[in-house]
């Protein structure tokens, strides 16, 4: 069946974070077309139409990928690297969402071509605000590349 184009790909392993993120997106009416994958391998399968998502249409590209750094199976930075080194997927905006201030992560993300790096605050209201702004920016303000 033909699904509406996915606008947001959320790569998040933590169920609480997942729930809260989607709640925040929903409360800002940005959650219509969200696909959630829960580990790095799944993320790659989805993006590259391999494995479980082999039957996905190639033309299907999310408007933004929200990527957590610490992921099971394949690490977030590795996923980022894969996305950004493949010409088919390179232009998809990737926003790394993480708890980590760690300098190393920041540097690695940017050197791999991340478009944005956001730290998830503990305070939920702040978190919600962050999500709202992200959503607004990447889904409404930002002009996606034309395929």
């Amino acid at each position, binding site marked *: 069946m033909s699904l509406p184009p996915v606008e947001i790909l959320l790569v998040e392993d933590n169920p609480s974070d997942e729930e*809260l993120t989607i709640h925040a997106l929903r409360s800002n009416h940005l959650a219509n077309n969200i696909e959630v994958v829960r580990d790095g391998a799944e993320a790659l399968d989805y993006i590259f139409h391999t494995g479980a998502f082999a039957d996905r249409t190639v033309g299907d590209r999310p408007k933004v990928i929200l990527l957590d750094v610490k992921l099971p199976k394949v690490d977030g930075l590795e996923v980022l690297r894969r996305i950004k080194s493949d010409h088919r997927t390179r232009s998809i905006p990737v926003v790394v969402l993480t708890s980590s201030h760690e300098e190393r992560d920041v540097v690695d993300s940017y050197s791999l071509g991340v478009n944005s790096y956001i730290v998830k605050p503990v*305070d*939920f209201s702040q978190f919600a605000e962050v999500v709202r702004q992200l959503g607004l920016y990447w889904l409404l303000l930002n002009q996606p590349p034309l395929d």
Partner: protein
Amino acid sequence: MHGQRKTGERMKLTAALLALYLLLLAALGAAGYHFYHGQQQRALDEARTQLTAIADLKAAEIAGWRRERIADGEVVQANSGSVPEIRRLLEGPPAAPSAAILDWLGALKRFHGYTNVMLIDNRGAVRLALGPAAPFSSHCATLAKEAMRSPQVTLTDLHRESQSGAIHLTVVVPLVFPPHKITAGAILLWIDPSTFLFSRIQSWPTLSRTAETLLVRREGDQILYLNELRHRKGTALRLKLPIEQNRGQLPAADAVSGRQGVWSGVDYRGSPVLATARRVPDSPWWLVAKVDADEIEAPIQQRSELVAIILLLSVLAAGPAIGLLWYAQRSHLETVRRESEVARQALVEHFSYLSRYANDIILLEDETRRIVEANDRAEQSYGYDRGELLALSIRDLHEPSSLAGFEARWEAAKKPGGILFETTHRRRDGSVFPVEVSARVIEVDGVGFRQSIIRDITERKRAREEIESLNQELEQRVQRRTAELEASNKELEAFTYSVSHDLRAPLRAIHGFSRLLEEEHAPQLSLKARHYLEMVRRNALQMGNLIDSLLALSRFGHQPLRTQTVAPAALARQAWEELGTEREGRRVEFVAGELPSCTADPALLKQVFANLLGNALKYSRRRQTARIEIGCSTMANSCVYWVRDNGAGFDMRYADKLFGVFQRLHSQAEYEGSGIGLAIAQRIVQRHGGRIWAEAKLDEGATFYFTIGDTVEPE
């Protein structure tokens, strides 16, 4: 061996000295002879020169005298030609001479000192005579007649007056009255030779004992001496000696034979003379000048004798002098030798004392590698007794396999400073032990020996090996520790990383869901429930802060220091700028003093300022105008940076708690904060080798001081 050599040497020395002495004598003798001979030659040459000169002089004088006499005669001849009376007297009958004639002839006689002036006719008869008209010797008449044959004025030879025996020579002035050609007669002018001639002859210009000149003439085969000789009287015209016999001896004989030059002869009295002769020109005379040989030699003789005496005396004196010197030298040498002997003896004793009680083995080997000396220790160490050792070669003490390179080492011992090496030696019982050998070549009485000082280094080797193995162990341990440390650090990093991610996520969930709960089920919740939820959220947030603080502390405490020369003023300013939000809406005065540069990690130092300035701002919030100052003071020779505020201050009683982790001196209600800022500042300052402390008064502000030390933690 010693004594023999010394005697031999002594004999050699004596022989040498003797030879030297004899040589000296010979040299002196030769020199003396040479001197004598030289003197002799010189004297002879001088005498020759003198004789020659005198002979020339005298001969010339006599010849001159003769000429003058003849010249006088010629004057008379010329004058008498114009006196007619003369003619008359001569040719006429005997008459008395006129006064004029007498005057004239008298004047002549007086003027010239003639002993007689006679006028004779051509038959030889005396017509006039001013002097004693003594009978005219026939000899004289003959002479006159002879002379009158030619019109020349002539001078007769010396002849003796037969009656008086006086010697005369006569100037015969033939008178010819033109136009007659024949001689009418002659005027005879008698000269006494002793007035001038003989005195001239007999005089010798210099002072001489034996020298004389004499006149001789040949008479047949004999020589007639004409004057009175110096050394014999009664010789004038009397002494006659045969020529032939005396030729080659008598100077006069050689003279009349025509001998030239200066020669040696034996004179009329038998004395050896040096003589020379001259023919008196225009006369039958020879002039002989001679001087006795021993007069010539006398001064030489004298001088030589004197010199000889002096030489002899000096030689004689030299002998004993040299002898004395030699003796003195010998006795000095003796003394020196005795002293050195004593010294040597002392040395030998000292040495043998040392070597006996030395802790190391001391061996002396000769060139054949044989042991010639060994000390007590050697006996102990090798297990041989002294006698056995002295029969061994040093090679026998070696453990066989260690003999390789033995010869090379032996040679090397000849280098100055000798050689030091390790090897293995063997005892009598066959056991081996490692040794360190110090060997060098020494010379004793010109013979080479090798001295070895041998030390048993079994202990040393063992200790060395132990040290090496300990070192290795230590190395390994260090490596292990380092690895452990590195692992530990890695663990910490991983831990920190984990914490930063994994702990926050649940907190986010706690906070988030409690919020959702409140929002979505607000109507169902009582005020108290809402309050509880609020508390849950607050605690979650608090925990988040604590985690952040701990992470910061860990990071600042462990991240590597990247030190460089920094300007604290710039860093403080940057930190101040970044605190912009804190300052919003407030009146804040900021005074930055001179901050000298230091060596620090800029990011960390900035953090210190950030924390201190942040605190300063926070705790002065209640002031109308917050006044914050930074500066640097010199305290105890070091530079101390400080940050001062006019805020709440604190009670100094609790000052030691200030820098503790999570320690606070104010409640969260008064001033929020995690209590980690100062702990981080302290950690950073400590890592830079500095100190941090604070002074404050409650409600009057606080000043925080810190130093950046010289000894910074290594990178």
